Every structure is written in structure tokens, then in C-alpha cells.
């Protein structure tokens, strides 16, 4: 096995024993990245020099016996998370030249662990999309089939992990943006409970839905990264002062005594047969591992989640993206004497079509006379959905669904059909609407294309879903398969 293929816990064992240095590991990852990037295009920025100097410091720390499990381990950061002194573009022309003067809270935490930041990952512009095709720079390619999308919006992060460019990555998830690409690329991706991880420094798409989470090669790594980034932050009023357990301690391979529910609304019309078959097999496996399965769970409001999501998320986005006016930072249209024209043209040329589409949707939904019919109603639907989850979690320890109704689709296939594209997130976005945690883990392949299984937990029930995911992972080999690239 070459060093970039290591998991965090495998790399940590070698680093701690000084059988591998962070400098060696980092160099190997950077070389592999250099080799693969022309084909994959997962990264917007490669921070080679920064990574090298961080690796040197990490080695000193490890030599002193003070290593954290993340010390010296190369990580890729979705380019929507602010990194002090390193460009943070959101894959948008608008922020192509934006260098944040501050670090996101998660970056401060990773830096405190001695992490090695090796690059910033490509994404759909401002995290709006499900294929990473909406990057203003270039699309990212799925390592399992280069003609297919990696999912999105954290496509670059998922590909960097799946193709072993980095050991792990951070993504952000507003409607499935971590889990759907994790499923499409056969890696582990978690959206923690809303409020579990600080959003300070995460460039906002939809504030009440956004959450940062890990993309990793296995469930153990997911728990390690969550340990590092979770916790209350007094700079984020929506982060929750709940105690943070050690998530690695819940990883046991026995599911006896757990009751799992399978909500039928998630097996939607248009779901591919291969996905359905793989999920049924995966759920049977969970039953073999000792879990009690209820196949007849119903969450009747689920079909309304997509509509509610496409009101709430664009509404919040329309305000969140109002700050990009060319006055303070980022792209600025200057070929005019008129202040208003400068602001309008900055936005006309700085934003891509999908971003503009959502700003218009949100602006419309919030307009006088429409607020009650759209935004307020969507919030009511949100309350119903949340209640149904609350109700379900009085009976079930976790819920099991597919991550996406399809395997990765062809690049360009859905680009001109936004509604088809939006349907790609139909299984993941109700989870953001409810604010609960969910993880996607590799659950098989259909004709060589990855399939993800989603495990959904109650608020702050990350331990339960990690446990289910870990037991399944230990009993299967899907996560060990590598894209032949």
C-alpha cells in the first residue's frame, strides 16, 4: 500500500511509531495529486509550501511524543471554508482573488491538532449544485468513471479522498453536499447535527441548513475528525453547548438491541433498480448483525421536503450573497462611472447561472405579498418534517435510506435540467430540513459505480449512526475497494 492510501488511524500509527514521517506522507500525497489532478480536477488550490512547512512542524511535535491523531496527516478543505492567507474562492469568479484575513473555527481546530493543509477543493459555486459542474473554474471528474460527475457540491473533497490525493477532507452539507458525493465516490461522509460543528468561517449558502462535516476513507476516520471539529463556539450563536463525547468509543461491531427503521418514502419513484437492490442487501446485512429492522416506517411529509428546501435555502442565500457587490473584496466591475451600474455588473459577471437562479428564487419567495405563501409555509413544512423525525426516533435508534436514488450520472447529463439535478438530493435534503445528523457509507456498486447508504440519527445522536455505520463497514469490504486510477 502506498502512503496516500492510508486512513487517518493507519497513518497515525505509523507516524507515532516514527515509521513514516509527515514530510514523507505529505510529499507522497502532493506527488499523487500532481499526477492525478489533470484527470480529476478535484482541487482549486494546492498549498504545497504550506503543507510542507506544516509537515515539518508536525514531525517535530510527533518526535516530542505530543501527536494528536490528526497531527501530520494531510487534509483537503472544501473551498467554502475560510483559510487565513490562503485563497477561498467558493469556486466562484466573485471570490477568485479573495484571501480571507481570518481562519474558520474548524481551521483553528485543525491547526491546533497539527494538521497538514494540502489544498482547497473544487465545488459547485457557493455550494449550489449536486455535481460540481457548477464550479466557475472546471468540473471535477469521478475517479470510478472519469466521464461521470462526483456529485456535489463537495465533489472535490470526495474525489480527493476517493482517489487518495489527501487522507481526508472537510466538506459542507446544506442539502446533501457531503453525503451525496460521498455516496457517488464510495467514501464516508457525515453531516453532523445542525449546531454540532461551528459554522464560523464557513461561507454561508443557507445559514439554517449549512453544516461542516468530514469526508473520510472509513468510519473510524470520520469519528476521529468529528472529535476534532465538533463543539460549541461562542462565535456561532447557532452552535449548541452540548458536551462532545469521544466518538471513537462508540465503534463496536455488534448491533444487538438496536432497532432500525426503513422509511418507505425514501424509496422514491425513479430510483434505479441497482440502488434499490444494493440497499435491500445492505439492510439485510444490518439485520444479520443483530439489528431489528422495521421495513414499514412512514414519514409522510417527506415528499414536501424538496419544495420546502427550494424555498428556504434560496431565500437565505439571496440575503447571504447580497454582500458580494464589488465594493469591499472579490471581483469588482470598474468600467463605469455609476455606483449602481458597478454593483449590478459585478453581480452579473461575478455569479454563475445556478447562483443567479437561486438568488432570484429566494428574492421572489421573500417578496412582499409572497412571504406567507412561500417562506412561511415552507417553515411550517419544516416543522412537520422535524416532528415526524422526532416521532420516529422515539421508536428507532436510526433510520436507513439510500443516499441518492441513482449512481453517478454523466457529466453534462443534467446540467440543462435543474429540476432533475435537484432530485438527486431528494434523499438527503430532508435531513438538513430536520437538522438531524446523517452519514453516508459505501454500500456496494452497480456496474462498477458506487452506491451509498444513509444512516440518519436523532439530534446529537452521532454516536448511534457511527455505531451502525461502523458495524456495517466491518462486515463488508466495499470501503476497501479503490477506484482504479
Amino acid at each position, binding site marked *: 500500500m502506498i502512503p496516500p492510501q492510508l486512513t487517518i488511524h493507519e497513518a497515525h500509527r505509523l507516524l507515532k511509531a516514527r515509521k513514516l514521517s509527515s514530510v514523507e506522507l505529505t510529499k507522497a500525497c502532493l506527488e499523487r495529486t500532481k499526477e492525478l489532478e489533470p484527470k480529476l480536477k478535484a482541487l482549486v488550490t494546492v498549498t504545497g509550501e504550506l503543507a510542507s512547512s506544516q509537515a515539518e512542524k508536525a514531525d517535530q511535535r510527533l518526535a516530542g511524543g505530543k501527536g494528536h491523531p490528526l497531527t501530520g496527516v494531510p487534509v483537503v478543505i472544501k473551498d467554502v*471554508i475560510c483559510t487565513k492567507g490562503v485563497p477561498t474562492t467558493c469556486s466562484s469568479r466573485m471570490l477568485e482573488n479573495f484571501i480571507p484575513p481570518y481562519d474558520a473555527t474548524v481551521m483553528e481546530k485543525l491547526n491546533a491538532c497539527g494538521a497538514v493543509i494540502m489544498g482547497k477543493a473544487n465545488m459547485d459555486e457557493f455550494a449550489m449544485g449536486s455535481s460540481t459542474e457548477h464550479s466557475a473554474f472546471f468540473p471535477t471528474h469521478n475517479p470510478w468513471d472519469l466521464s461521470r460527475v462526483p456529485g456535489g457540491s463537495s465533489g472535490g473533497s470526495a474525489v480527493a479522498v476517493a482517489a487518495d490525493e489527501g487522507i481526508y477532507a472537510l466538506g459542507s452539507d446544506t442539502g446533501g453536499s457531503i453525503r451525496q458525493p460521498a455516496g457517488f465516490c464510495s467514501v464516508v461522509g457525515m453531516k453532523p447535527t445542525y449546531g454540532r460543528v461551528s459554522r464560523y468561517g464557513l461561507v*454561508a449558502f443557507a445559514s439554517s441548513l449549512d453544516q461542516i462535516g468530514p469526508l473520510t476513507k472509513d468510519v473510524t476516520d470520520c469519528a476521529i475528525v468529528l472529535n476534532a471539529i465538533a463543539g460549541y463556539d461562542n*462565535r456561532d450563536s*447557532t452552535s449548541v453547548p452540548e458536551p462532545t463525547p469521544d466518538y471513537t468509543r462508540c465503534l463496536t461491531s455488534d448491533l444487538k438491541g438496536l432497532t432500525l427503521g426503513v422509511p418507505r418514502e425514501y424509496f422514491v419513484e425513479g430510483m434505479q433498480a441497482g440502488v434499490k437492490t444494493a440497499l435491500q442487501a445492505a439492510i439485510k446485512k444490518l439485520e444479520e448483525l443483530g439489528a431489528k429492522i422495521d421495513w414499514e416506517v412512514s414519514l409522510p411529509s417527506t415528499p414536501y421536503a424538496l419544495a420546502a428546501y427550494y424555498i428556504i435555502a434560496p431565500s437565505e442565500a439571496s440575503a447571504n450573497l447580497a*454582500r*458580494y457587490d464589488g465594493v*469591499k473584496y472579490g471581483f469588482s466591475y470598474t468600467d463605469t462611472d455609476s455606483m449602481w451600474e458597478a454593483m449590478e455588473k459585478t453581480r452579473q459577471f461575478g455569479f454563475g447561472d445556478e447562483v443567479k437562479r437561486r438568488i432570484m428564487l429566494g428574492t421572489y419567495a*421573500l*417578496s412582499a405579498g409572497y*412571504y406567507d405563501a412561500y417562506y412561511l409555509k415552507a417553515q411550517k413544512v419544516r416543522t412537520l418534517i422535524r416532528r415526524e423525525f422526532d416521532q420516529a426516533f422515539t421508536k428507532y435508534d436510526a433510520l436507513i435510506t439510500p443516499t441518492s436514488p441513482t449512481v453517478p450520472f454523466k457529466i453534462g447529463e443534467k446540467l440543462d435540467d435543474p429540476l432533475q439535478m435537484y432530485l438527486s438530493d431528494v434523499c438527503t435534503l430532508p435531513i438538513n430540513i430536520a437538522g438531524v445528523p446523517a452519514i453516508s457509507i459505501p454500500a456496494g456498486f452497480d456496474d462498477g459505480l458506487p452506491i451509498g447508504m444513509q444512516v440518519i440519527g436523532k439530534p446529537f445522536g452521532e454516536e448511534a449512526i457511527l455505531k451502525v455505520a461502523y458495524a456495517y463497514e466491518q462486515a463488508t469490504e466495499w470501503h476497501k475497494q479503490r477506484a482504479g486510477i
Partner: protein
Amino acid sequence: MDTLVFLPTLTHPTGEIPLNPPLEIVPFLSAITIVAILKRAMDYETVIGLEVHAQLLTKSKMFCRCSTDYASAPPNTHVCPVCLGMPGVLPTINQQAVEYTVMTALALNCTISDYTKFDRKNYPYPDLMKGYQISQYDAPFGHHGWLNIEVNGQKKKVAITRVHLEEDVAKLVHRASPGNGSYSLVDVNRSGVPLMEVVGEPDLRSPEEARQYLIKLRSILQYLGVSTGNMEEGSFRCDANISIRPKKSQELLAKVEVKNMNSFKAVYRALTYEAERQRKRAAEGKKLSQETRGWVEDKGITVAQRSKEYAHDYRYFPEPDLAPLVLSKEWVEAVRAKLPELPEARRDRFLAQYDLPLYDTNLLTGSKAMADYFEDCLKADKASPAPAKEISNWLLGEVSRIINANSIDIADFRKKVSPERLVGLLALGKKGEVSAAAAKSVLEEMFASGQPAEDIIAQRNLRQISDSGAIEKEVMEAIKNNARAVADYKAGKKQSLKFLVGQVMRATRGRADPGLINELLLKKLEEV
């Protein structure tokens, strides 16, 4: 034959004649028309509602930790990623600002909402860093309150619609380009300073009522210590909604919003002008349009502002970055218990406690700083306090004169002359060490130099002359030099005595004891 006629000014609600603007001159049509115009103009009443924004005196900004002490700081030095509206930043609520707003709402007799939240008010402008302002829409901290005003001895209760909290915007500085155009600079220091908005009901019926409302509101904020209330420096701002309606009707003609008034006087003048303008248009049968008008101070007029910039749909929605606030009854009651004595209560107490005339009491308690100064004077000499009325006379007389002459306030005066020192001066007067006339110039000198009374009296040789030998000499001199006045006195013109006293006073540079001069003069005049 056409002649010219001035439109009536009698319709002015307070009966005063506005100084500005110069009255418009319109062609005379017929006597009947004029009578009709007069009659119609008199039949309208003015309806005014005020929106006041006050910067709160917190140490840090509303949603970040930047200092609010930026008044004399260079541009863009009190800023951070949060108040600059950088990508990825989040707001956190300043608890002190919440407490100040609830204090104000309580002092304005508002109902305090137990559930409140912040909302985003969306509009594009380069002074607004995020493209939206964090404000409060449908759940303000306080609502349904009132405050009392008094105009011409008439008390009036003015309803308060709501008290809410928001953030201030950056400051734009407009500059002319070397060419023909202009450009603007953005100073972000002010961005994010806590701004409290007090919205009053349209209960005010004249510019004078509006002025009294503002004075009272500012006084309450100053008593609470939540705002400086300085209108000229922009920490206390007022926008007015003004319209007219036929008397006994509930139907307002077009509502006009007046902005850009930067002093109490400007508010009074602008509203006086605007009420008059609307009456004239109505009397002429012209249509009044709903619009925003700006007060142009140097011209003394309001002008219509471009409507495009102001015709906004603000698309309010709940601020997702801040959780709703639930104010517990216990907390609100704890805030209420901490409220300081407010202007009306203090006035009533002064009346009961100090036996002062109503006039004095109103003036002393109108400003918290003045009332504090007054009471500190009383406390300064516990053994033998100066009489309240004497202190009041000094504060409302000589001290107020110095304050007005120097365009300062009592707080500035206090920095130079502490209550203890003023009382010290009064004590010297009581002991006969300084005459009343000299004391005034001593106070002037105390204010100018910041020295205590004793030092000034000693340096400038102002100690009162109570030595009858020295005064007698000056009396003799006055009698000798003013033969005419002496003759008049002898002839029965008793006021000539005053003249002679004045001469002696002048000769002693006000230092001589006036009683002694009188006594000696009478005696010596008998002898002449």
C-alpha cells in the same frame, strides 16, 4: 388688476409665525378665493409621528467585539471581519445592548415581548456591509408604551409603537473628483454599532409637540445612561412622518417622511415648514404625494428625494444566524428593579424635597447631568449645606449663562468647576469674603482656569472689603467727585443713592460690602 398677497400664516398650529422659509408669493385672484383658501387652510390639523434612532453606549459593537469608541479614530480602524461583512462571519448578540433596549422599553412603559428575535432587512447600499441590516421586524423588544410631554402647561400622553434593536451602518464620505464627477469613501468604524429605534405613534399635533417629545425622550435615555442623545454628532437621529388632515376627519392626506434633520431646532423648523407647505398645496387644491423629503438646513426648505432609492421591499425574514431570544420574567423584573430614577419622578421628588418653584424644578431635572450637579452641590457641604434655592439660582443663572456662552453642556462645565468648588464659592460669599458681584467674575475665572475660588480671590485681590476705614475713604471720594448726585439726593431724589453706591463699588472693583457702603453713605450724606 393683479396684486400680490401673502398666504396666511395664522394657520400655524402653535400660532407662531415661522421665520423660514420666506413666504411664497402667489397671484391674487379674488377676495372670495382668498377667503376660501383661508378657510380651508385653517381647517386642517397636523399629524406627526417620530422615529428616533439612538446609538447605545455599549463598549463593543452590536454583533462583534470591536470598540464603539471610534469618534476620534482614523477611518476603518475599529473594524473586524464581522462588522466588515466578510464571507463566512457570524453575528453574536451584545447582551448589554439588549439590556439597554429593555431598560428603555420599560422606562417608556412598554410591554416587553417574552419572545423576540432578529430579522434581516434586505436592501443594497455601499454603507451596508452584508447587503442586509440585522434589525427586528415583528417581534421588537418592547411595544405599546407611552411617554408624557408638556406643551404650554398642557400635559399630553404620546403613545410609543415599539422599541427595537438593530445595527448601525458604515459612514459614506462623498468627495468631488478632480474632473466633473464625484466619488464616495466608506468608513466602516460605525458599522455594527448598536442602534435602538423608538417609533412613536402619530399622536403629535404640532412641531412644538414634536420638539417636546424629542427633548423628553432624550432626557429619558440620558437618565438611563444608555445613549448620549447627541443629535449634532449623530448618536441621536430623528426621522419624521408628517401629514395633514381635515379637522374631525381620520383620513390623512399623503404621508410625507422628512429626513436629514440634525438638531432639535432643525426638526422644529423642518416640521413647521413642511406643515405649512402641505397646507398651502391643499389650499391651492393641489395633490399631495406620499414621498420622502430631505431638510435642507441652509435653505430652510424640504426637497423631494429621489424615490427610486427609497422604494424598497425590504424582504424581511428571521435572521437564521441568531436564535430567537426568550426573556424570562425574572430577568425583565431584575432589569426593571435596576432602573434609575426617571425625569418625572425626579421632578416630583425635587418639588417635595427641596421646596423649589416648579419653574426651577423643571429646568433642573430636564437634564440628568444638571439635576445630578444640583444634588451633588447639596451633598458637598453636609455640615452646613447651601440653601437649595441659592444653588438653583446659581445653576440656572450664572452657570447656565457660561454654558450657553461657550456652547457646552453641564458635563463640560463640571470638568472645570466641580459641585464642591461651586459650593466653596458660595460659602465664601456667605462668610463675607467675596461680594455677590465679585463672585460672578470669580466663577468665570474658575471656569476659565480650573482653579478653586480661594486661589482666584487671593491672586486677583478680590477679597471683600469689610474694613469700614477703607470704604469710608472711597465714600468720601465719591461724595467729593459727584456733587451733582449729592445735590440731587439732598433735593429728595432717593435713587441718586444707588448711583453713589455704584461709584463706590466701581472704585473698589466690586469688593466692598454693599451693606456697609449703604450704611456709610447715608451717614456721610447726613454730614455733608
